[in-house]
């Protein structure tokens, strides 16, 4: 009995360092945000007080919040399928025995190791009006000049493309690892049966990659609501909030307008959305996934 108790104490002591860090920097801030979202922002002459759901009511009436939410959903719908599709395509491509395979794998993975700030700066140059790379190409083809990041119609698509470019290589690595885990005799057996490359992919490779797809999908969803660096570098949410994403709006409200309680309420909404998304994915998709 005594030894069991001491073993338990021993175990908890081993967990303590990591636990302390997690509590101090993750759990406590999360709970504190939730609490703060029900209070008013402290001002020099007006200390913080309980305001109930006032912050959430303000949110419902806030057009910028709604715009950010819609922008974010469109950003997610743009990046997730494109990044995953591209990752899968690249992985299947560099998994085959092609000349220069190592180089291709490296090239595809490079965007992942670059910091997002650097990536955003590279793309900023691509998109720059008049002398940017894109402009030079379109000008050479005789097409009219266009300010990709400066116009409401194309700004969101432009930043979406950057995120796809950045993420696809990362997801490719997971797909590549999973593809290498599929026995090559399966491909031979399929070839003997007369299956085309496409049939083999559709009927064998893709179903066997489902666990990876689920993992990548969850990561892609989280990333779609978490990515904010390139918005700060490239557009600062503009023009006219056309590229304002939820997390960017949280940042703006919290650290530009210093309305911390409202920012906390926005954060809680963002967290709840992500939690629901993860639950749906695990609950619904996991049942359709074949694990070996």
């Amino acid at each position: 009995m005594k030894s069991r108790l001491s073993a338990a104490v021993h175990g908890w002591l081993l967990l303590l360092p990591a636990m302390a860090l997690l509590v101090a920097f993750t759990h406590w801030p999360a709970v504190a945000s939730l609490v703060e979202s029900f209070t008013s922002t402290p001002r020099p002459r007006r200390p913080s007080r309980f305001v109930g759901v006032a912050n959430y009511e303000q949110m419902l009436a806030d057009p910028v919040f709604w715009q950010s939410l819609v922008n974010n959903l469109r950003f997610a719908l743009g990046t997730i399928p494109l990044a995953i599709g591209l990752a899968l395509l690249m992985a299947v491509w560099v998994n085959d025995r092609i000349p220069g395979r190592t180089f291709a794998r490296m090239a595809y993975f490079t965007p992942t190791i670059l910091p997002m700030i650097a990536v955003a700066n590279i793309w900023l140059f691509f998109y720059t009006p008049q002398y940017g790379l894109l402009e030079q190409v379109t000008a050479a083809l005789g097409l009219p000049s266009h300010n990709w990041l400066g116009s409401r119609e194309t700004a969101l698509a432009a930043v979406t493309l950057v995120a796809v470019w950045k993420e696809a290589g990362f997801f490719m690595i997971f797909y590549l690892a999973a593809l290498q885990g599929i026995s090559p005799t399966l491909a031979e057996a399929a070839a003997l049966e007369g299956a085309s490359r496409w049939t083999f992919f559709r009927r064998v490779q893709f179903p066997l990659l489902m666990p990876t797809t689920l993992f990548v999908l969850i990561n892609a969803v989280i990333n779609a609501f978490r990515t904010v660096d390139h918005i700060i570098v490239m557009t600062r949410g503009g023009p006219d909030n056309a590229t304002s994403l939820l997390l960017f709006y949280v940042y703006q409200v919290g650290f530009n307008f210093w309305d911390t309680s409202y920012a906390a309420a926005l954060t809680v909404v963002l967290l709840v959305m992500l939690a629901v998304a993860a639950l749906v994915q695990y609950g619904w998709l996991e049942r359709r996934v074949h694990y070996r």
Partner: protein
Amino acid sequence: MHSIAVERVSKTWNGVAAVEDVSFTVEAGDLVALLGPSGCGKSTTLRLIAGLDAPTAGRIVIAGREVTGLPPARRGIAMVFQSYALFPHLSVAENILFGLKVRKVPRAERDGRLAKAAETLGLAPLLDRRPSQLSGGQQQRVALARALVAEASVCLMDEPLSNLDAQLRLEMRREIRALQQRLGMTMIYVTHDQVEAMTMADRVILMRGGRIEQNATPAELYDRPSSAFAARFVGTPPMNVVPATALAGRDWALPDAAAGGLGSLSVGVRPEAVRLDPAGLPAEIVAAEYLGADTLIETRLGGVPFVARTAGRIGMKAGETIHLAWSAGDAHWFDRASERRIA
């Protein structure tokens, strides 16, 4: 008519030959075993016939049609892999029907063939299971069923039984042979197990170092091995091959061929052909292994191990001396340098 003809086929990997100048034919309805130690080129030969690898030189003809350049699917063959290569996410039925669906065989016929194959191999109660829910022997049957429903006249098998336990291997061996004969399939069967090759095959092709060592019926392979390698590879325990000088002065054991001198010869005697005879060669017992029906007595002759197989139990222990003899007709004579048979 030859169902399969392999003509002067070679395969090199980056200059290293895996298969060198191999030629043989398989008659329609025969089961031919490709036998040999690992790395002898038997699996490569099978893969070349299947079209999974392309030969560096030579021609492959199946059912009178040259297939050397054709993809696997157009060669009219079925294949069973060593690892079975079942699709882990598909049910047994879907695995068996995979090829028929790819080939767009009409549904009614598909179901008919599935029912027939499932009945033949006793898979009917397992059709909805996943491969991971099956035992090794059941997986083997599914792989076999997948080969059967293709209704190809030629079936290639790459060490299909090597992942099964001994008891199951014995059963499946008989079952595959019975199936092959009942359905009149032409089969090439790769194995490193000489018992499998000897018991199942109409002909055995023994390979070594990428070349054919001997192509013969099982009886011929046992009775007249063409080389010391073939002699040692077939039979358990293997044939004793000792330098002929160990027999010097024993006229009863020497043939006319030995007249030229014993130094360049070796003599092979199967353990089961050795008898204990007071007039024989004296040898000291190194060890005796009692197997039940008989006993293996290990001795030394000419400095190398020499095993005799005697019926029942002998009352002798290591260190005692016995006398070994055999009929002259049971001795196999090989050239010592080339290892080829000379008489």
